């Protein structure tokens, strides 16, 4: 699914990733670990196609619309409601049975009651839950999750644990985390950066 040879990425004079070789097969779950600034988020953005490598080659065998990307920011509009944001993405991603899918995700992540509230009023944890709904909305083949547990409360963590258990082995996942122990049992490999 993902193959990188001599992959490098610099921002100005700062090299964030250098000479990275990587092979991720379909339905693998690769943990990406490393200290702050080691290039975890950069690697995920490269795989998503949001950044271009400055060195080496990267091949991702997933179409643009089949990638689910969870970033540090939730990538949703603060002035729109949770429902409006998911509806926007559902339309753009051409999600079949959009309303049912959105309703199911909002229920699952405990946001149904807050669905008509503006995202600006959401706590950090609620925004992260909404970001997870957005990431999973189109049932992607490749999931790029950057610190998915960030900001979640205990209930949210349990929900995400269950989600990852159901996704592992059926989807390809790259999961960047500072807490690899939490998902180590599901992982098929670990990439330590930095």
């Amino acid at each position, binding site marked *: 699914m993902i193959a990188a040879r001599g992959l490098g990425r610099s921002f100005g004079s700062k090299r964030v990733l250098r000479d990275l070789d990587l092979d991720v097969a379909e339905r693998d779950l690769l943990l990406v670990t490393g200290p702050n600034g080691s290039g975890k988020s950069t690697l995920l953005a490269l795989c998503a196609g949001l950044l271009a490598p400055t060195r080496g080659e990267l091949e991702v065998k997933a179409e*643009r619309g089949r990638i689910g990307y969870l*970033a540090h920011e939730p990538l949703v509009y603060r002035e729109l409601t949770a429902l409006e944001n998911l509806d926007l993405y559902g339309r753009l991603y051409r999600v079949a049975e959009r309303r049912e899918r959105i309703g199911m995700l909002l229920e699952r992540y405990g946001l149904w009651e807050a669905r008509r509230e503006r995202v600006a009023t959401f706590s950090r944890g609620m925004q992260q839950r909404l970001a997870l709904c957005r990431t999973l909305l189109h049932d992607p083949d490749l999931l790029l999750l950057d610190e998915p547990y960030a900001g979640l409360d205990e209930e949210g963590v349990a929900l995400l644990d269950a989600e990852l258990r159901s996704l592992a082995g059926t989807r390809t996942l790259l999961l960047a985390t500072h807490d690899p122990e939490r998902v180590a049992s599901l992982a098929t490999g670990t990439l330590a950066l930095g």
Partner: protein
Amino acid sequence: MSYLEDVGTLAAKDLRLELRSRDTVPAMLLFVVSTLVVFNFALPAGASADAAYGLLWAALVFTAILGLTRAFAAEREQRVLDGLVLAPSDRSAIWLGKVIAVVAFLGLAEIVALPAFALFFQPVSWELVAGVALASVGFAAVGTLLAAMAAASRARELLLPLLFLPLVIPIVVGGVGASIADDPGRYLGFLALYDLIFAILSWASFEYVVTE
């Protein structure tokens, strides 16, 4: 058909965002009216009508800059543009949706500006209205592309006017010409041609602006 649906979805989103936040159109309205008021007092008595038209076009250009500076503010705030860019829809739909919203905002500002101009300076002719309408499309087409470029920069407030002003000089030339010339059709045709060329260029190059 799905392309037009995407454009409609994105434009509706921008209009809804503005209806909810009201942080662009009121500022544009206030700016254009207060600028015309200032010009009314700045222009000496007995000044030519041509000068008044020139001032109107200067006010419209800077009102457009004000609106365009905010065009990608919501996307920049939480990196929403990344989410839109990853969607399978054609990326130029993002540009076209935004252009429609910017034209709507500019149109609202002009609906207030033209009567104010008539009140302070000169009667509004159909040639002026046609020129302003064509100019709005040109401002939005070029400005939206440049606003997307500037949004990725830290010096965005500085960069946008620096890029925008030189590119819209032809619009000002055409707009003023359509307002005061004996043969406004020639200038209106020039504005329409400008809109067509720059709309195609901006539409085709937007993808390269929002991706690396």
